[in-house]
């Protein structure tokens, strides 16, 4: 309870807020005027294909690179002006793990903790081991970093973000290089942290990952933020506009003609079935129309769109196309 009081002191619940955030490299616009809003307490899925500007945005949020224009507010502090104050409360994993190869995992964390002007040296060993334990790396704590597998490296980077209690975690592609078991563990960890009240901004190019982990979602494409909001709203919106109807019949062409007449779009006759996008057409109207025209309906299904379908409907392109 009191934790909540502390976190919301200041009356502003947005953990991240940007306005017109833009970054241009030479003549290429990596991020083109985005208004990001990550509500406090949310698990925000920052979704987009590789090269869509997610990492550049995260680097700007962390004060690593300066925006060409636009403003950033991180936990109520302006960036880069208030970066020193804000970043203490932020744990980050940026563009993959990076550590000293000849130091052990534990020594690497000790070094990063020593670099933190606000951390307590006396509690360091306990905090480091707790963080290692949390990501399941304690048995490999004394191994040199260079001997770590990619998955272990990724875990070490997450452990670094957990060295001190944080109000906000920014995890850039946290499941990269992890096996299915590791991916599940990260998902579980993010869920746990969110329950404890930590706001999480997690970027990913994997739709399913965001679908399973997040409460909010923002979709980046070619440097633009196409949409953001509650994940459930996105699904509702998708259901409204992107529901697909499938009719099993032995008279495919006739069925297709009827569906077009009713108002379905993207009608595709297949072998023994026809599919079409429902759009604004009421579901209950479809089957009676088919029956009226004497088309035998052997089966009828409404297919709920996957997040990927939603993405295609937003961008007009497949998800794997890089910006």
């Amino acid at each position: 309870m009191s934790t909540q009081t502390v976190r919301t002191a200041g009356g502003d619940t947005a953990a991240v807020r940007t306005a017109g955030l833009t970054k241009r490299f030479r003549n290429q616009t990596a991020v083109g005027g985005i208004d990001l809003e990550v509500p406090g307490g949310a698990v925000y899925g920052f979704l987009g294909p590789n090269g869509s500007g997610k990492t550049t945005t995260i680097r700007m949020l962390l004060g690593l690179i300066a925006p060409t224009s636009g403003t950033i507010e991180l936990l109520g502090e302006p960036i880069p002006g208030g970066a020193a104050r804000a970043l203490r409360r932020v744990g980050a994993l940026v563009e993959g793990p990076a550590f000293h190869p000849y130091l052990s995992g534990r020594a690497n964390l000790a070094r990063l903790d020593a670099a933190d002007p606000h951390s307590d040296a006396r509690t360091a060993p306990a905090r480091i081991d707790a963080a290692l334990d949390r990501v399941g790396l304690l048995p490999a704590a004394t191994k040199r970093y260079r001997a770590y597998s990619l998955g272990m490296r990724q875990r070490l980077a997450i452990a670094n973000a957990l060295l001190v209690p944080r109000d906000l975690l920014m995890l850039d592609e946290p499941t990269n290089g992890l096996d299915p078991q590791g991916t599940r563990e990260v998902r579980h960890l993010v869920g746990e942290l969110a329950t404890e009240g930590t706001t999480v901004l997690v970027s990913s190019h994997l739709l399913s990952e965001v679908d399973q982990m997040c409460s909010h979602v923002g979709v980046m494409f070619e440097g633009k933020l196409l949409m953001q909001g509650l994940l459930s709203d996105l699904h509702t919106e998708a259901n409204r506009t992107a529901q697909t109807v499938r009719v099993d019949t032995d008279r495919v062409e006739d069925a297709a003609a009827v569906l077009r007449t009713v108002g379905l779009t993207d009608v595709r006759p297949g072998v023994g079935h026809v599919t079409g996008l429902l759009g604004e057409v009421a579901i209950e109207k479809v089957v009676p129309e088919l029956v009226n025209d004497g088309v035998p309906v052997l089966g009828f299904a409404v297919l709920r769109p996957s997040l990927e379908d939603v993405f295609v409907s937003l961008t007009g392109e497949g998800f794997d196309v890089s910006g």
Partner: protein
Amino acid sequence: MSAAEADVVVGGPATRTDQLPRTGRALPLRFLRSELQIVFGRRRNLALLGVLAAIPVLLAIAIKVSSDDDDGGGGGGPGFFEAITSNGLFVAFAALAATLPLFLPLAVAAASGDAIAGEANQGTLRYLLTIPAGRTRLLLTKYAAVVIFGLVATALVALAGVVAGLALFGGGDVILLSGTTTSFLDGVGRLALSVLYLSACLAALGAIGMFISTLTEQPIAAIVATIGVDVLMFILDSISQLAWLHPWLLVDRWTAFGDLLRDPVSTDVIGQGLLVSLAYAVVFMTAAWARFSSKDITS
């Protein structure tokens, strides 16, 4: 934990991290200690220190062998080489003179060139900065480690020289370059002052290395460029037609540490050398700060 939180709530608007102990501020040396562990733990740097410690030993052995052969006629180097056979302490001075143009600068270049570029190359720079370690604080801590590394390298040459010299030539009273005799302890004191003077000179070179290190993500390139600057200045310093330029060269007064072996000690040139070093250090650390504090970290 809840007690601490209650305090914070009573205390007005606060963040969760305000509950964290602030003792970190009382221990500004923790980061430096960690940095020194990195610098002195790097194999490249340890190898350089090994070479630096070996040079005085080689020098002492070579002079011992040649002086045994032709009965003291060897040497002929810069001043102290001839004095070595009379007192082992001079091995240390001769070794400093021998390592000054290249090997000592190489050690400082290796540490300073690597300072920022090495972290950038490894990707660890972005994690240090998001901690946040603070860009100015990071730069200053790294520079402090470079200066300490230069001091240790120089002291190591002197120490190895003293040990090798005492073993092969013995100690005793020291006959200074101006002909007067002083105690062995006084000689050691003068050697210590020489080490400090050269460390200050090398610290200025370290500032150049720090600046170059902020310009690239390739540590080897930064190290080579720093050595290049050092060698270039020695070359310019040896061209007599460029005499007007010499007072402005960082390396011009490095060999002035020999003045500490005169009686009375002549401090004019050494004083100028320290001023020039200070000027170089301030200019290049300011440039490094200006560059680094506004740099986009894309590594």
